[in-house]
């Protein structure tokens, strides 16, 4: 028997499984107070899903407010936090929308589908802003490379991202792959999408116009992921717990491709008043959000939803997370044209509801009322927690346990072997085994892609205007000091965008943490959000939106606090971009910024000594801002041939990557007064390696001097070093002072062998 509103009114004492659905007793009572009766089972399902951590952000809201409160003043933001994705003005009448989201827990359970549907979800978010999705990126984190479970999840996740993204026709232009013990059992799959539209095409998720129709279109609704959102993302993994329905969503990228084309056509034909994608919490979310943001009322005939599985109950239909579905608000006059365009693309569409100004969201099932709620209480007025947090008692000891006593290589031979070991370290090794499974060329506008510093795409084929994006986070720095770690993540992403020649404009973030019920994790979250908000204000780039993923832990051990920061920048003409590959012989290699003895949380300490302790490198955001301006000016004014940020693995890693990318050797030397080991492997922030033609050298160094940015000439590009170093003519060599030489072939073997060796069968 259907649990109708009438039945609920008549049976106030009927026990309800609110705890199994993840609601606390006080939350359940609040629902009863809102409705002035007990909720029907459908209403209970809606509230339980929409008030889950993943959908309501109940543990994070109080901290995320800072992004709005501390937002730097900027003209560039067209749509701020609160909508599906932020929208940034990049000039020339173009607007760009971008966002990063997580799909961590589903990817642990079913790597291929979890990652695939993660891509699908973020692409629909971008689509629902009115933009054509143009590119994707994937920051990934796994347990140790050689752990059995990494062997289980990594190939599936990579295949899923490639399988879905390639089939959609979106180039993958960058991302990260990081290995660390703390991610074993809790891999992180963050997916970013960027899209563009003309200013006038921006659409918002609101249901306006009394009498307008609510159209559900796309894939049919089935039993995918029922309870997935609240069950998986709001609890950590434990043993047992059978489920009747699959908790994993299965994606169909072909359907999403059709959805993209149909949606863009109806948007450009002006047939849509409001639009929303169906992600976490499916129909419950779409209807309650659209209703809240519009006239305030909506009526839904749930039995009109096209089903893949006729046995689904109304509660299950409301909670289903079947993929590739969108919801549009269409005027009655436009309905036929809307349906016709969907038909052209063989996309099913059906009217399931109507906008009204009743201030209520009502849902009928075969003529019986099963939901009657104020939509704002479902979508926007969920619980807000002020979770307790405190600095972990072990934090001081961790910060005091610095890396200064770790044995360091000092002889030339030791430095040489350290270099070869470092470039082969899983975190520093080439990721091409992974990235070659992604299409980087489709759409024909990819200007820079991995392993460049940032992914860059051309937006305007006539003017050459483009955008660049980088995603970064060093979780080790964040564990040592979450506040500084977040600022360092922002700094690195900002620096990477500037290094490509683009002006940083806006920020998105994916905040991956352990359980918010653990006060120490909550402290990490509070500190990281504070650091990111403060950092954004200082750098003048606002947060436009993002995502929080909690409960990334198995048992009592959380992951490293991992606030992934994505920065987007704009470049007037992509032709001016600065790649990392250096140019012809004789060009000069400069190191910009100050190098200090800073090894806490470094890849050297991690890979060589398994050590994590001390204070992370100093984050000087004024210096980062200056460095960024120099990098952009150097690019725009043609002074720089190449630029590469310095981060993991220090200057040595940057030089090796530039050499391997260009296939040409170089002679580098250690500046006076600095220890070679420090110069090569320290991870001080605020630095970049740039390459300058001799004819531009004076102009460039004068610019740096005038702006007071330290610039040290540390090398010269040289393809003829082979014979002097004892090799055949033509052999490309990296010569480091009078310490050692190493051929690019040797470096390539070390750098490219690590990941392929484990996965290529």
């Amino acid at each position, binding site marked *: 028997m259907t649990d109708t509103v009438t039945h609920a009114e008549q049976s106030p004492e009927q026990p309800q499984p609110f705890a199994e659905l993840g609601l606390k007793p006080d939350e359940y009572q609040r629902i009863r107070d809102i409705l002035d009766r007990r909720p029907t089972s459908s209403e209970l399902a809606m509230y339980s899903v929409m008030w889950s951590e993943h959908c309501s952000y109940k543990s994070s809201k109080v901290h995320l407010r800072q992004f709005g409160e501390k937002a730097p003043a900027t003209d560039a933001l067209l749509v701020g936090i609160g909508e599906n994705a932020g929208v940034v003005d990049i000039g020339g009448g173009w607007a760009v929308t971008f966002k990063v989201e997580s799909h961590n827990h589903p990817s642990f359970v079913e790597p291929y589908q979890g990652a695939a549907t993660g891509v699908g979800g973020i692409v629909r978010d971008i689509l629902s802003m009115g933009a054509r999705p143009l590119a994707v990126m994937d920051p990934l984190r796994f347990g140790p490379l050689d752990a059995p479970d990494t062997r289980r999840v990594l190939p599936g996740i990579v*295949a899923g991202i*490639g399988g879905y993204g*390639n089939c959609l*026709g979106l180039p993958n232009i960058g991302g990260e792959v990081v290995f660390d013990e703390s991610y074993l059992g809790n891999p992180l799959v963050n997916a970013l999408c960027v899209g563009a539209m003309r200013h006038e095409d921006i659409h918002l998720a609101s249901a306006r116009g009394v009498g307008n129709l609510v159209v559900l279109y796309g894939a049919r609704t089935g039993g995918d992921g029922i309870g997935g959102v609240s069950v998986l993302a709001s609890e950590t993994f434990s043993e047992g717990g059978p489920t009747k329905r699959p908790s994993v969503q299965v994606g169909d990228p*072909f359907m999403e491709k059709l959805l993209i084309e149909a949606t863009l056509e109806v948007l450009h034909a002006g047939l849509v008043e409001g639009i929303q994608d169906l992600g976490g919490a499916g129909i419950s979310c779409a209807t309650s959000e659209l209703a809240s943001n519009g006239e305030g009322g909506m009526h839904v005939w749930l039995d009109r939803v096209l089903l893949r599985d006729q046995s689904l109950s109304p509660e299950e239909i409301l909670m289903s997370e079947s993929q590739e579905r969108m919801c549009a608000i269409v005027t009655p006059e436009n309905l036929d044209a809307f349906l016709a365009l969907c038909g052209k693309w063989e996309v099913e569409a059906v009217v399931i509801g109507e906008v009204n100004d009743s201030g209520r969201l009502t849902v009928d099932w075969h003529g019986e009322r099963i939901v009657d709620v104020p939509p704002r209480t479902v979508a926007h007025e969920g619980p807000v927690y002020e979770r307790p947090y405190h600095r972990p008692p072990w934090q001081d000891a961790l910060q005091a346990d610095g890396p200064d006593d770790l044995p360091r290589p000092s002889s030339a031979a030791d430095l040489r072997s350290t270099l070869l070991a470092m470039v082969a370290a899983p975190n520093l090794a080439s990721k091409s085994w992974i990235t070659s499974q992604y299409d980087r*060329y489709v759409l*024909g506008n990819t200007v820079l892609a991995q392993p460049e510093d940032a992914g860059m795409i051309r937006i305007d084929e006539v003017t050459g205007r483009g955008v660049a994006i980088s995603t970064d986070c060093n979780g080790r720095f964040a564990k040592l000091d979450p506040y500084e770690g977040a600022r360092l993540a922002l700094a690195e992403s900002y620096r990477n965008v500037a290094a490509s020649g683009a002006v940083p404009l806006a920020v998105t973030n994916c905040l991956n943490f352990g359980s918010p019920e653990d006060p120490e994790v909550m402290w990490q979250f509070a500190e990281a959000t504070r650091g990111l908000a403060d950092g954004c204000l200082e750098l003048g780039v606002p947060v436009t939106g993002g995502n929080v993923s909690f409960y990334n832990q198995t048992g009592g051990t959380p992951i490293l606090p991992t606030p992934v920061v994505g920065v987007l920048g704009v470049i007037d003409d992509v032709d001016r971009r600065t790649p990392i590959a250096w140019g012809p012989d004789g060009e000069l290699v400069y190191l910009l910024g100050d190098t200090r003895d800073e090894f806490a949380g470094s890849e050297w300490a991690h890979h060589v000594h398994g050590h994590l302790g001390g204070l992370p490198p100093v984050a000087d955001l004024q210096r980062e801002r200056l460095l960024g301006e120099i990098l952009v000016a150097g690019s725009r004014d043609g002074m720089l041939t190449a630029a590469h940020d310095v981060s993991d693995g220090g200057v040595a890693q940057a030089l090796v990557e530039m050499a391997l990318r260009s296939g040409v050797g170089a002679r580098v030397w250690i500046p006076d007064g600095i220890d070679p080991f420090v110069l090569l492997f320290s991870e001080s922030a605020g630095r970049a390696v740039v390459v300058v033609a001799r004819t531009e050298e004076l102009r460039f160094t004068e610019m740096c001097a005038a702006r007071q940015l330290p610039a040290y000439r540390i090398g010269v590009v040289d393809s003829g070093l082979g014979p002097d170093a004892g090799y055949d003519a033509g052999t490309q060599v990296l010569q480091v002072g009078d310490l050692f030489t190493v051929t690019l072939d040797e470096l390539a073997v070390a750098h490219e062998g690590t990941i392929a060796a484990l996965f290529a069968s």
Partner: protein
Amino acid sequence: MSPRVGVVTFPGSLDDRDAARAVRIAGGEAVALWHGDDDLHGVDAVVLPGGFSYGDYLRCGAIARFAPVMASLVDAAKGGLPVLGICNGFQILCESHLLPGALTRNDSLHFICRDQRLRIEDTSSTWTADYAAGQEIVIPLKNGEGGFVADERTLDMLEGEGRVVARYLEVNPNGSRRDIAGIRNERGNVVGLMPHPEHAVEELTGPSTDGLAFFTSVLNSLVASS
């Protein structure tokens, strides 16, 4: 008036816009053709672009092959209309039996995107006339089902008649028999190619501009014959 080259869009086609861009850069007029329309609108040549038509469901190109536009295209191709099938387009041409053989899952079982070195071995086809015989080029390759297979007799026939248009060099990325990257029909107006010349037409976005000659070849041959 420049020659008109049709580019067909099937549900799931992805590189149609890129093929159109390549046609434009080569100096032609790109005409969008819809899979459901059996009218070829008087185009002088047709490109079947890359992508995942119908999601690659059933088999790559197996469903697209029955589209209304294909019925007209098969007739026109038999009558001499130049047709270039790129990647998914090559798969559709094989499924339609305009070209022999079939494309199967990469032997590595992975999708691979790489800048691929090729040798152009036959320049008698309408689509490769602007290359020099034996010319080595680098153009992007990106596929998961690119392994060209045919029985020995067919392979010998293709080799013997000079119908292998392009061959993989240095690396065989998908297990194609005899390293075959592209073939032509007997007449030379229909060419199937696994790698993507339309992604190598601008220095800014491709590894080279080596792919442009596929498009200039057909335009030049059309101008010459008009």
